[in-house]
């Protein structure tokens, strides 16, 4: 889901997952990295110890530090230190980190026969920072308040999945009735009633909306200043709307109830609003407190990678990560000439993925992609390449197809892109595509829009451009949140944000999506998502360009770097500075 980048909130998402996703999920060709991930950056020296202050140097502030408003993958990085959720991501290196594990709950949830009802039981001895017990009523309340218009920002799944979710307006306007589809039989049990089978519900329960919020402590939009902690740290200071955030130990957090968070440092000092160049410079110099510093949202840029070059000391402190994400060329097949499959195929053949990858920052920051799904097992990755363009494109084959399509004399089309400087949907990528298509006799005119206008065009089902740059990131590591919003015909939204750009409404595809959603065996589901991706890919409804890679620098004194295939970033709950 992640796509816009400029909105702060979105960026916050992008931060907590995507960009922040910078460090380490490893691709097949990254086997070496994977092996070294645990012993990768900062592996030197003795075993990790408790104590010290970890500094986090970030670009985007932790604004909206309210569990109802955060849009995270797996509960986010900094937020996950304060908010515990029913389930959470497995804090392990590599592919094992893409698993979902229990957090506040005793298990991943008990589904009924058709996976439309999920029941959770809380662990014993769970307490808030003030020592009062955590109850399921507070989890229900936390979810309900995420429906309030004042607290907008989270992911859409709760509204889409819970019975009555589409019309519920939150606890401030419901006259105390609450949302009936969340049932709390007792203080330890909670039951969710869904509109249709959702085998991946345990993944959703990792998001911060599933963190408990005591109703008596709810202060509406001001709750973000001091949200009540259920995790190993509590907010000691929050200034400038999350620009600086000081977290201290929550003495009422019992490590015996939490197998995932290590919480080595005594304090976490989050400083944001810094320029990417400054963050990387400070991490590389690592002087004073910066030696015990990490970033959860800033990647190394191409120029910085060029600089690190052959500096072994610096290179040893760079972590590599992959987050489920794809950048692609999208078509609107309702617009001529993209209604002609041969034209779409010709473009797929003509694309030069080497220049595109270079424009995205080079082979260290992007991997050429021919599949929509990221190259990770958790997503159900199944390799396919229906229109082999080779490394630098096949203009001859493209010309041939254009001739068959009736465009023997060439073709002029418009490519819509954004002006954001993100090396994703930005002018660099667009001009690389423009150049490659020129070789196949296709003249591409560029239409660059400011970020908001670009997103609105892209998401407007009635006015979608014929040909544009787009991108998609996973809310959790599975094929579901990757393929369903993009290719499910029933998710075409005509009066809001539509992500099914091709407006594909194929009964067979829809039926298969429903069938997979019923599976609670996630491995079996993965295989079928992969097969579905391949089947859709053959229709050339889009041209996958690349999957981004994240390169993250850590300070000299940072130990126990863990980077999972879920977030692709260094997991802040595992880091030690002593």
């Amino acid at each position, binding site marked *: 889901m992640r796509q816009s980048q400029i909105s702060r*909130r979105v960026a916050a998402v992008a931060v907590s997952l995507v960009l922040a996703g910078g460090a380490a999920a490893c691709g097949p060709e990254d086997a070496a990295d994977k092996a070294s991930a645990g012993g990768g950056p900062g592996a030197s020296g003795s075993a990790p110890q408790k104590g010290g202050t970890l500094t986090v140097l970030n670009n985007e502030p932790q604004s909206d530090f309210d569990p109802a408003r955060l849009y995270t993958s797996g509960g986010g990085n900094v937020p996950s230190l304060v908010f515990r959720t029913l389930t959470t991501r497995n804090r392990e290196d590599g592919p094992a980190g893409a698993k979902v594990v229990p957090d506040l709950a005793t298990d991943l949830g008990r589904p009924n026969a058709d996976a439309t009802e999920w029941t959770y039981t809380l662990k014993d001895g769970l307490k808030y920072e003030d020592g009062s017990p955590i109850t399921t009523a507070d989890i229900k309340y936390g979810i309900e308040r995420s429906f309030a218009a004042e607290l907008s920002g989270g992911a859409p799944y709760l509204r889409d999945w819970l019975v009555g979710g589409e019309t519920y307006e939150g606890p401030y306007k419901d006259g105390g009735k609450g949302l009936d589809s969340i049932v709390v039989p007792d203080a330890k049990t909670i039951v969710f009633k869904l509109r249709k089978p959702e085998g991946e519900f345990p993944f959703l329960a990792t998001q911060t909306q599933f963190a408990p919020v005591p109703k008596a402590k709810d202060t509406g939009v001001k709750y973000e200043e001091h949200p009540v902690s259920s995790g190993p740290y509590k907010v000691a200071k929050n200034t400038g709307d999350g620009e600086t955030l000081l977290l201290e130990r929550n003495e009422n957090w019992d490590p015996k109830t939490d197998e995932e968070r290590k919480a080595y440092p005594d304090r976490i000092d989050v400083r944001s609003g810094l320029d990417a160049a400054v963050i990387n410079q400070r991490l590389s110099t690592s002087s004073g407190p910066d030696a015990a510093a990490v970033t959860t949202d800033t990647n190394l840029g191409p120029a910085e990678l060029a600089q690190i070059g052959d500096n072994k000391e610096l290179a040893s402190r760079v972590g590599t990560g992959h987050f489920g994400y794809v950048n692609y060329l999208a078509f609107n097949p309702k617009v001529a000439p993209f209604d002609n499959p041969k034209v779409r195929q010709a473009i797929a053949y003509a694309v030069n993925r080497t220049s595109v990858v270079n424009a995205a920052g080079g082979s260290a920051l992007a991997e050429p992609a021919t599949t929509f799904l990221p190259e990770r097992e958790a997503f159900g990755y199944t390799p396919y390449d229906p229109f082999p363009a080779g490394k630098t494109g096949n203009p001859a084959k493209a010309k041939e197809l254009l001739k068959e399509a009736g465009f023997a004399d060439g073709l002029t089309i418009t490519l819509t892109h954004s002006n954001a400087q993100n090396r994703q949907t930005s002018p660099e990528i667009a001009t690389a595509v423009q150049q490659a298509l020129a070789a196949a006799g296709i003249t591409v005119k560029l239409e660059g829009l400011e970020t908001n206008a670009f997103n609105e065009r892209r998401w407007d089902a009635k006015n979608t451009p014929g040909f544009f740059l787009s991108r998609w990131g996973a809310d959790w590591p599975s094929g579901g949140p990757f393929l369903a919003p993009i290719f499910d015909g029933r998710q075409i939204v005509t009066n809001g944000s539509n992500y099914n750009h091709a407006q594909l409404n194929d009964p067979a595809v829809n039926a298969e999506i429903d069938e997979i959603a019923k599976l609670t065996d996630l491995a079996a589901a993965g295989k079928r998502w992969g097969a579905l991706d391949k089947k859709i890919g053959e229709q050339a409804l889009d041209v996958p360009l690349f999957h981004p890679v994240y390169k993250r620098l850590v300070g000299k004194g940072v130990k126990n770097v863990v980077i999972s295939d879920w977030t692709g970033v260094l997991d802040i709950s595992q880091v030690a500075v002593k």
Partner: protein
Amino acid sequence: MTGFVLRRLGAALLVLLALSAVVYALFYLAPGDPARLACGERCNPQQIAQVREQLGLNDSVPTQYLRFLQGVLAGRDYSGGAGLVLHCDAPCLGFSYQNDRQVTELLLERLPATFSLALGALVIWLVIGVGTGLLSAVRRGGLTERLLTVVTLAATGTPVFILGLLLLMAVCAYLRWLPFPTYVPFGDDPEQWAWNLLLPWVTLGFFESAKYARLTRSSTLETLAEDHIRTFRAYGVGERALVTRHAVRGAVAPVIALSAVDFGTMIGGAVLTESLFGIPGLGKTLIDGVRVVDLPVVVGVVLTIGTAVVIAGAVADLLYAVADRRVALA
């Protein structure tokens, strides 16, 4: 005098009103739906509608503008959820779509950075600019003067971001005398505050210094040409003494007045310098606001800038009048 001040004040208010209306109108023509922007990614239509209602975006544009003006003069209330009513005191510049914050609060938070930048630049141009100007007035026709001419021309010609970039490149990347600047608030650590602002100060101060050197020099020379100075000279008073004790007075009024104008303009945000050095001031806030079409922030910053410039202009006139009695108030 009172009449003069009142007239200036009235004109200033009109300028500000026109400015806010123009920016407001402009941004309603801009692409982008504020409700969707405020709602965040993947909002469903119902949610967007709720947010639109909450932000009062269903009313006509003139109504919204009037409400905005009312907020500036009298303050406004917002629903904060959980039965909470947030009061935004006058001058309330509205509520940022992007940051979920009151614009006034946001701007007040950014003001110290901009103020710090302008203050340091002011010191530099007063010391270096005026100093060089006086020096060249003493040694007319010498090497100093020729150098001054060249440097001034170069300073007029260089875009500020080129000097800033080159300084960053030389001082931070190659010589490594300073780390890459990060703004540190004065209250947190005055020493770090100064070190980190040094490069931006030098960048801005350099240009302004050249301008002030010229101004100082020409005003001093004008005074030197006046009758009473000739009399002093005839009595055998040395050239240096003439300049430092007498002629310098001629430069005081224009330098002070122009400083007021420049300082006001800089409070309004040195957009390029702030962007280049990542200083979280008004200028950077504005650029970020424009990029995401965050109307309340843009209107707020433009009004603040306008106010600063207008006040500075008025102060300059008054200072000029006080410092130089010969100028009658028009």
